[in-house]
């Protein structure tokens, strides 16, 4: 469904992505793990058109979308739920959801989708007229996820959905993401919580310093000695 070929991204003279390639098959959950600064977020930002690609291609459903604007990429069906939630703090829960459906014109269907999101997240339904900046971190994450569903995307990319959340909320967030995948939406996820991410995914990539160093099934990566030592905090001799 999504294919990246030899993607290179630079911030000034710093190379953030040095020719990475990856594939996200339809209806699968693919994760991208790696340390801070490895280029995970840059990968997502390049796919969604926020960061220009210096070279390489992003192919979505057979179409080259490299260099398209963020809004045309969203219109093609790729939603991006950014790191740190980034809800619009001075707007209400309902307004945030409406903004998620900004490109759509089917008012009645939008309202139906909004109600579906609110029934999925009862906490948001209770707080629908509240300004998003006053929600707790977990509620803001739910809102960010709900907002990314409002464009009816074919693929949703989650950037660090567990960041800064309490452990029980993290678990809830991951099960919601699982649910989205089971409902038929393809998911790509970037996570620092490597164990949980590898455990739930269909396929995984390991990014180090802008290069793809490993790929395989989640279980395969979990048992890989390098991954165990560097990312799961298990020493090779234990």
């Amino acid at each position: 469904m999504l294919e990246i070929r030899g993607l290179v991204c630079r911030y000034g003279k710093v190379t953030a992505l040095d020719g990475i390639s990856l594939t996200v098959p339809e209806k699968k959950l693919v994760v991208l793990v790696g340390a801070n600064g490895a280029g995970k977020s840059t990968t997502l930002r390049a796919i969604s058109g926020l960061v220009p690609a210096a070279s390489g291609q992003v192919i979505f459903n057979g179409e080259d979308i490299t260099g398209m604007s963020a809004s045309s990429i969203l219109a093609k069906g790729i939603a991006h739920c950014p790191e740190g939630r980034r809800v619009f703090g001075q707007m209400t829960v309902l307004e945030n959801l409406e903004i998620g459906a900004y490109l759509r014109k089917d008012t009645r269907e939008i309202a139906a989708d909004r109600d579906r999101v609110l029934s999925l997240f009862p906490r948001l339904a209770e707080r629908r007229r509240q300004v998003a900046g006053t929600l707790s971190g977990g509620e803001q994450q739910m809102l960010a996820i709900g907002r990314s569903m409002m464009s009816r995307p074919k693929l949703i990319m989650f950037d660090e959905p567990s960041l800064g959340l309490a452990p029980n909320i993290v678990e809830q967030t991951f099960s919601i993401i699982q649910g989205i995948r089971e409902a038929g939406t393809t998911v790509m996820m970037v996570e620092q919580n490597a164990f949980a991410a590898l455990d739930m995914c269909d396929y995984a990539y390991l990014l180090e310093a802008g290069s793809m160093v490993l790929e395989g099934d989640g279980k395969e990566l979990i048992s890989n000695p390098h991954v165990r030592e560097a990312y799961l905090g298990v020493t090779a001799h234990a």
Partner: protein
Amino acid sequence: MDQLLQHFANTIIMGGTYALLGIGLTLIFGIMRIVNFTHGELYAFGAYMMYFFATIIGMNFFVAIAFAIAAGMLLGMLLEFSLLRPKRGADIDTTMLIMIGAWIIMQNLEHLTWGGIAKSIPSPLPETPLVIGPISISWLRLMVLVIALLLIAATYSVINLTKLGKAMRATFQDSSTAALMGINVNAIYTLTFGFGSALAAAAGALLGPVFVVTPTMGDLASLKAFAIVILGGLGNITGAAIGGFILALAEEIGAGYISSGYRDAMGFVIIIIVLLFRPTGLFARAERVG
């Protein structure tokens, strides 16, 4: 007492146009964070366009107002597109210098085009004022107030109730996330600048026939607009509207009870007092940082 009532009446009349000026600037300075020194020039531009459409071409007075507002919007969009868009993301000093340059050029172009002699715009409204008890108000000023209030209500609705207004608010809270929602952020910047400029031009088009039109009329308007925005709190539309009326009241009281020479000084007095005691503006909400 009668004199005080008349001062209050004058306050309401002037306050409406001041509110327009202030709301226009709070969109640009308060929300977009561009220190817009051209705001007063757009006010002057609106007045000259009013002179052009109503007096030179001889259009219907009210149609001319609409045309002057539209011209202000177009000029504002052109300024944003040509001067600010290439410098998006630059620090505030850079854009401030650009806007100072634009201010000087615009003012001198007005001088070059229209000459230094003040122009007056005759109005079709009756000369005899409306007299209610001890208060007398000219029909022209009353019309200015009504149109200003309509424009304020329209602005308020656009920002708070329409999809465009939501996109504007989202863009200025977090432009990269707004882009991820499919909002054309560049278009929103240009449109918002145009919108703020249109309000400045509207104030000019409305006050042009009340006073006279001169190339330097924008300077004082700019300063007053900044006073109103600081008074109401940056980016606060309701604050700017109320701030406009407070400035008008301060000017009336200053002119009526201190000395008429103090009228235009009241804006500065207000800026100093607000910055000393309530630097976030009179109507600032508590803000959650981070």
